[in-house]
């Protein structure tokens, strides 16, 4: 057996009284793709910052190829060993791809940058690793997957052969994920080792050979993926057996009144969409990215404006292109990206949760503080948000709890139509359960729910799932569909769109 490429032993990292990592261990063998999984707050990110030399561990050792890790200040030494591709881009958006690859080490001629030399070297580098990206493109214009490949190529050019991918698939659709995996396998064959962090266990089984599980800041287990059935992996992560819940099929009575009635809706992202959602019905929207599913859902929330067609909510026409008017008409929504649209990170949980219902908490635009606190506390209880109270800033919360705050706001106005876009993106297993159980509660209250998601788990709870392809509804699957059926129709395999 070959010597480990990376070996971390007994790593401890404390922030004040709390141990972010109490017993971190990791052994990565050269040439493998190693998965690092754990719920939010399990210590994955902390371990990554230590492995990439951004922080020193309080205790424990990190070794690369048997050698002790370089000192923190020696950035060049770290760069030649390990690199991390984060969800947040670490490229300069306004500069070209070529310049980003060689930032601060541009090839010089007589002390000045040789742009020709830069282009040539960038093209060579991209070619070597088979990255099909135009070196002259503005980096801001790249797709997420290409940007990730550029960052990987840059890391490889420093000599690093150990790449940490921090939730690389979070912003990709199924097809892009497949491409990323293809490229990962190719790079792996040429000797690159990956540490792969993901919330999607399916992906772990697809690309990784070994998996390490962290829980509550401790190492739990490391095992070959093949010896780790899904149930055992979930158990290791959760510390308890979450029974794969049987989805009880329940019929929405055909007689339930239609709450959302959409006729012939058209915009630049989709066309001629007809859609009805009954009281207490949960309808899923699925499709690859660019299928128009997000724009369709955003049309009901006022974030996207259709050019033609009508939507009626409870008999009354739903106004378009005006978020305020949509809220007033009885739409509650969880927007696509909680960082960009969901939360004001500097504000408290209470403020965030009640942001869209302030008019109910006082008169003439004034907000009653006590009423707000009371209202927020009630929401925190209802959604089981783990927090010290409504006055804690949202920025303190983990991904799962932050998403619950977004959900709390969507529910705060007691909506008649609840639109959820990627409601469980970047959220751990347990929070996911809790978020999705809100959908069931809403359904029982007679709310119409529209769920847009790439996650089969989210869609499984829907009474039916509509599939969009190139802006058209191409299929409808009643509850009880099989994974491969739905995926086939999302990917456009079973029809000729």
């Amino acid at each position: 057996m070959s010597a480990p490429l990376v070996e971390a032993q007994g790593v401890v990292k404390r922030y004040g009284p709390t141990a972010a990592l109490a017993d971190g261990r990791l052994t990565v063998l050269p040439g493998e793709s190693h998965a690092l999984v754990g719920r939010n707050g399990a210590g994955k990110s902390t371990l990554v910052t230590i492995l990439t030399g951004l922080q020193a561990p309080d205790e424990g050792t990190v070794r690369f190829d048997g050698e002790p890790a370089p000192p923190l200040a020696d950035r060049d030494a770290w760069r030649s060993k390990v690199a991390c591709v984060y969800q947040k881009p670490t490229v300069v958006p306004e500069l070209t791809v070529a310049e980003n690859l060689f930032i601060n080490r541009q090839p010089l001629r007589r002390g000045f940058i040789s742009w020709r030399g830069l282009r040539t070297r960038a093209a060579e580098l991209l070619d070597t690793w088979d990255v099909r990206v135009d070196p002259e493109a503005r980096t801001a214009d790249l797709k997420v997957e290409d940007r990730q490949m550029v960052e990987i190529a840059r890391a490889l050019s420093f000599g690093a052969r150990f790449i940490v991918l921090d939730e690389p698939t979070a912003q990709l659709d199924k097809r892009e994920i497949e491409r990323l995996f293809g490229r990962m396998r190719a790079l792996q064959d040429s000797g690159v080792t990956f540490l792969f962090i993901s919330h999607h266990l399916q992906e772990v089984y697809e690309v990784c050979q070994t998996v390490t599980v962290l829980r509550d800041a401790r190492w739990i287990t490391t095992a070959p993926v093949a010896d780790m059935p899904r149930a055992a992996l979930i158990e290791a992560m959760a510390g308890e057996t979450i029974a794969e819940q049987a989805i009880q099929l329940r019929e929405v009575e055909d007689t339930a009144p239609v709450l959302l009635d959409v006729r012939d809706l058209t915009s630049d992202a989709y066309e001629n969409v007809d859609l009805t959602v009954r009281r207490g019905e949960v309808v899923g929207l699925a499709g690859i990215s660019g299928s128009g599913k997000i724009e369709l859902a955003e049309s009901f929330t006022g974030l996207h404006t259709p050019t033609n067609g009508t939507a009626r909510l409870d008999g009354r026409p739903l106004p378009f292109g005006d978020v305020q008017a949509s809220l007033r008409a009885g739409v509650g929504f969880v927007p696509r990206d909680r960082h960009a649209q969901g939360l004001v990170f500097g504000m408290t949980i209470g403020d965030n949760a009640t942001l869209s219902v302030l008019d109910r908490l006082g008169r003439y635009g004034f907000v009653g503080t006590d009423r707000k606190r009371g209202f927020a506390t009630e929401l925190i209880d209802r959604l089981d948000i783990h927090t010290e109270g409504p006055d804690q800033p949202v920025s303190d919360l983990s991904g799962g709890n932050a998403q619950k705050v977004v959900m709390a706001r969507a529910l705060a106005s007691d909506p008649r139509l609840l639109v959820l876009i990627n409601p469980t993106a970047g959220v751990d297993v347990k929070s996911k359960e809790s978020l999705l159980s809100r959908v069931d509660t809403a359904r029982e209250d007679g709310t119409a729910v529209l769920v847009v998601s790439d996650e089969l788990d989210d869609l499984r709870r829907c009474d039916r799932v509509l599939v969009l392809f190139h802006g058209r509804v191409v299929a409808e699957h009643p509850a009880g569909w099989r994974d491969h059926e739905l995926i086939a129709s999302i990917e456009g395999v079973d029809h000729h769109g």
Partner: protein
Amino acid sequence: MADTQAPPVKPVSVPNVRSARAVLLRRARELALVPALLLLLVLGALLNDAFFTEATLISILASSAALAMVVLAESLVLITGKFDLSLESMVGIAPAVAALLVLPAAQSGWGTELPAPVALLAIPLVGAAIGAFNGILVVKVKLNAFIVTLAMLIILRGLLVGATKGKTLFDMPDSFFSLATTTFLHIPMSVWLAAAAFAVAGLVLKYHRVGRSLYAIGGNLEAARAAGIRVDRVRLGVYIVAGVLASIGGLMYTGYVGAIGANQGENMIFTVFAAAVIGGISLDGGRGTMFGALTGVLLLGVVKTMLTMAQVPSFWIDAIYGGIILLALMIARVTTGRAQD
């Protein structure tokens, strides 16, 4: 898939066509104001026979030189994603300190009566010192750049008024005015100097690692840091350079006006920001070129001269000038097709 070598048949032409278009597009953004500038020149010539003459054109350049230096200084700071409002006060205080050093006490000087060359040398030093002070507060102490430099703007203006007791300084040695009075090829030295400063800044920003690092810092601070750029050192340096450039701009202003009023440079910062933003410098940092900033300066210079020549009543000039700045911003927004953030 395992093969890391490029496949034999490679679609080389595709990226080339794409990149050619991308380059053209980027250039187009840089040159966005040129048609507007040409249009204004033609318009000016049609409206007034005296407009398209050597004398008028040179006077546009001469009156724009000081502004150009300050816009250059501000643009460098803006590209790194910071602010410096106090530059306008440096325009006043730097040459004033030099004047106070040479003037006898009878003419409200400090009575040191230093030789003129030594006093002139004090000008960039004062600029550098103030720039360094701003830079340390903003970069090292991490105070908010907007408020720090706003406070400095007020402090420096107050110091100037205090030191001169509100009086105008004149009767300085001729060398104080020589940037404006000596000419080469009929064009004042201040114009040549400003042009040279823009050319050097443009070259450094395009062809030197330090110059490129300004864009990296303004575009994505963390990425710049991760690439090994000494972010704080570069930003501090930019504040110092900006101080030097603005103080030289102040000397040009003094030469152009012929005296140093206690209000020299007052309210200039608004025009400076207008010229920079019209010229495509982003207030968020990381974006903009020296050529763009220069066209912004020239555009405003041409407009101002046109308004004067059209004999617009002086009470109305500011209102019209402000309106034109707003219009220019809108035109720049439409032609570049980009949000100006």
